[in-house]
């Protein structure tokens, strides 16, 4: 007779926490967590104790104090009476600007150089090798300083453009001035922009072609510079003065973007239609003039309707060029140096990516009758892209982080404002540096999130 008995009930013993693999992983994790929390608590209590002794209670209140310093390049309104927070924001925008510009040029340059390095032209291939090795093996900080020094020393100062016999002349039909303070280019202006500092029209706008003006976000009726915006009549009615609102959105620019987007959409529709016709009949209708027309013509009409005109930089009196847009040499130097430096790395990635594609692909494409340039752009590069993108992401991240070296050339990015002058003036090291790190971390994580999403979308879908 067989009696069935229950399996012996396991009683939990303390030693199981160490010896039983079922519990051990839990034990290790709990120990690790406790250790981590103790470490954090220890750091935190040290910090509080030290700060109390120094008499500096951590507080972010300084962010709402007036900053007191000026920033030369500002993408939104700012003057030295604005807060430290706003100064930090200006710096953040500048960081994003140079990172964005840098990523684009670095990619373009990197692809060109990477392809040229594989060129059959001996001289060009050697030259590109030298370029890559030169940039990869010298610190980026030195390159930034170098490029800045070259810009400063080799370009003419604005005062060289003045006088009877100027030693320097403007380029491109006298519209662009390349100086060692930066590049001055003509600026596109709309009817309403033709005002002097005090907001008076310089010329009476021609009839109704005044453009759309600016829209102040968060305009305050009590703010004197907003007076004209809330006024219902007068020459400036509905037009915000400088410094009105938290920031102002150019409605002219918005209109241009809208019209452009609409144009591109219609152009795309025309293309799809042409594709359909080609598939159905085998003949492709000529559409380039249509596609160009739907983009250009509405834009031209819009520009005319908004009373567009160009202001040209000129230097007749004063110290600097007046009119036009100014691209400062600190931006150019940083942008150029970061792009050139990162391009050397991207070139290597591109080269490796291209070399990873098997030679059979090239031969097969050649057998189909494609010419070398089309082989590269239609067959090789699209495949290489999958190998290229992941390291490319990390190079974009590096470029963004390296943009923090802006202080070496006096470009006012987030390191120069928040972790630079604000830190110096307020003596709040803990708060500013932690805030700065947090901002960089957010930027980095967003870039990797976006790029990873893109990477996933171009990845080979395996069946």
């Amino acid at each position, binding site marked *: 007779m067989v009696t069935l008995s229950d399996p012996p009930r396991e009683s939990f013993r303390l030693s199981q926490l160490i010896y039983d693999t079922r519990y051990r992983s839990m034990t290790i994790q709990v120990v690790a967590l406790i250790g981590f929390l103790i470490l954090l608590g220890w750091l935190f209590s040290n910090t509080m104790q030290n700060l109390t002794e*120094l*008499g*500096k209670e951590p507080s972010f209140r300084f962010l709402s104090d007036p900053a*007191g*310093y*000026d*920033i*030369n390049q500002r993408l939104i309104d700012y003057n*030295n009476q604005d807060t430290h927070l706003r100064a930090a924001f200006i710096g953040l925008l500048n960081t994003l600007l140079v990172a964005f510009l840098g990523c684009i040029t670095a990619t373009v340059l990197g692809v060109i150089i990477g392809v040229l390095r594989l060129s059959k032209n001996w001289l060009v291939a050697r030259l590109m090798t030298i370029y890559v090795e030169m940039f990869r093996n010298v610190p980026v900080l030195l390159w930034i*300083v170098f490029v800045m*020094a070259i810009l*400063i*020393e080799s370009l*003419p*100062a*604005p*005062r*060289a453009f003045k006088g009877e016999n100027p030693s320097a002349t403007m380029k491109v039909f006298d519209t662009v001035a390349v100086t*060692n*303070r930066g590049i001055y280019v003509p600026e596109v202006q709309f009817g309403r922009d033709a005002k002097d500092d005090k907001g008076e029209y310089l010329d009476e706008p021609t009839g109704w072609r005044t453009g759309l003006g600016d829209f102040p976000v968060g305009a305050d009726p009590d703010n004197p510079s907003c007076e004209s915006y809330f006024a219902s009549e007068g020459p400036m009615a509905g037009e915000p003065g400088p410094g009105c609102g938290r920031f102002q959105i150019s409605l002219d620019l918005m209109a241009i973007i809208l019209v452009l987007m609409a144009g591109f959409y219609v152009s795309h529709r025309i293309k799809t239609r042409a594709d359909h016709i080609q598939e159905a009949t085998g003949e492709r209708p000529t559409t380039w003039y249509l596609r160009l027309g739907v983009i250009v013509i509405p834009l031209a009409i819009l520009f005319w309707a908004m009373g567009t005109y160009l202001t040209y930089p000129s230097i007749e009196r*004063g*110290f*600097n060029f*007046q009119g036009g847009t100014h691209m400062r*040499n*600190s931006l150019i130097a940083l942008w150029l140096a970061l792009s050139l430096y990162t391009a050397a790395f991207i070139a290597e990635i591109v080269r490796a990516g291209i070399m990873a594609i098997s030679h059979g692909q090239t031969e097969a494409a050649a057998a189909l009758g494609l010419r070398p340039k089309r082989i590269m752009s239609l067959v090789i590069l699209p495949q290489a892209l999958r190998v290229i993108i992941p390291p490319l992401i990390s190079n974009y991240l590096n470029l963004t982080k390296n943009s923090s070296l802006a*202080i*070496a050339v*006096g470009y*006012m990015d987030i390191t*120069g404002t928040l972790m*630079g*002058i604000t*830190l*110096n*003036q307020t*003596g709040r*090291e803990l708060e500013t540096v932690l805030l700065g790190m947090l901002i960089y971390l957010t930027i980095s994580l967003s870039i990797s999130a976006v790029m990873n999403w893109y990477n996933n979308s171009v990845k080979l879908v395996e069946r």
Partner: protein
Amino acid sequence: MKKTVFLGALTVAGLAAGAAAAGTLDDVKARGKLNCGVSTGLVGFAAADANGEWDGFDVAVCRAVAAAVLGDPKAVEFVPTTGKTRFTALASGEVDMLARNTTWTFSRDVDLKFTFVGVNYYDGQGFMVPKELGVSSAKELDGSTVCIQTGTTTELNLADFFRANNISYEPVPIETNAEAQQQYLAGACDVYTTDASGLAATRATFETPGDHVVLPEIISKEPLGPLVRHGDDEWGDVVRWTLNALVTAEELGITSANVKEMASAAGNNPEINRLLGTEGNLGEMLGLSADWSVNAIATNGNYGEIFEKNIGENTPIGLSRGLNAQWTNGGLIYSPPFR
């Protein structure tokens, strides 16, 4: 050349030197070295030569304090600091004192918890422009591009000045004097602004100094002086009175040449006697030896000698005494009496 191979000639680099509850003075004595924060390099004020020997106007203050406390002007470790790191270095005890052309301001004294022990140079922010611009006053600088050395109070003064005069400008912030100089010379900025002493020092090294003028406007008060941590009054007194000793020495005509002789025996002037320790016990009150001030003065001479040797009119920098003359000559350099 016989090289010394004698071992054990250095004190142990204490990782936890600041942990001792004793005051800074005791710390310095125990260490046998003074840790002095200086600038990373500023012509005439602090620079290292090819042998790594530091020299300059600020450096001389460090050496005088080391001589007073330790009897040895060489017993100084110079810690180069930037505008950003200097206050942390002092607050954390990494340096015992800071002699780095630092402006005495309310917030630094009160909010940042430091004690300024005195003023060794009365400075003010000025402007330098090329002569060919034909500018004779800073108020004519509307629309100009201005190079500023950051990390100081300079950018705030500048913003205030241009705002008060309702004129516009384009700031170009630059980290180091060397780079600012480069930009200015190449014409990338019209104006260079920093402390007037710095302007003079910079101008002196130009290829053609005559082509540049320093404008008459001085837009700020910049009393530069050594500072120590708040709350260590004993140490603050030592640094303060060492500086005062140098100033008083000039007033009383004590120089590096005659100090030993004057200190050898008490003379007729009781203040000289008290200062040099031949009468009274001022040194003991400070917790120093009786010949503390003799050592300090013998190092680089009195205040006037230090000035002349490092930044005075016979040096390439060529600063005149101006505000920094003795009060008896119409300047502001004035020491409380040794009594």
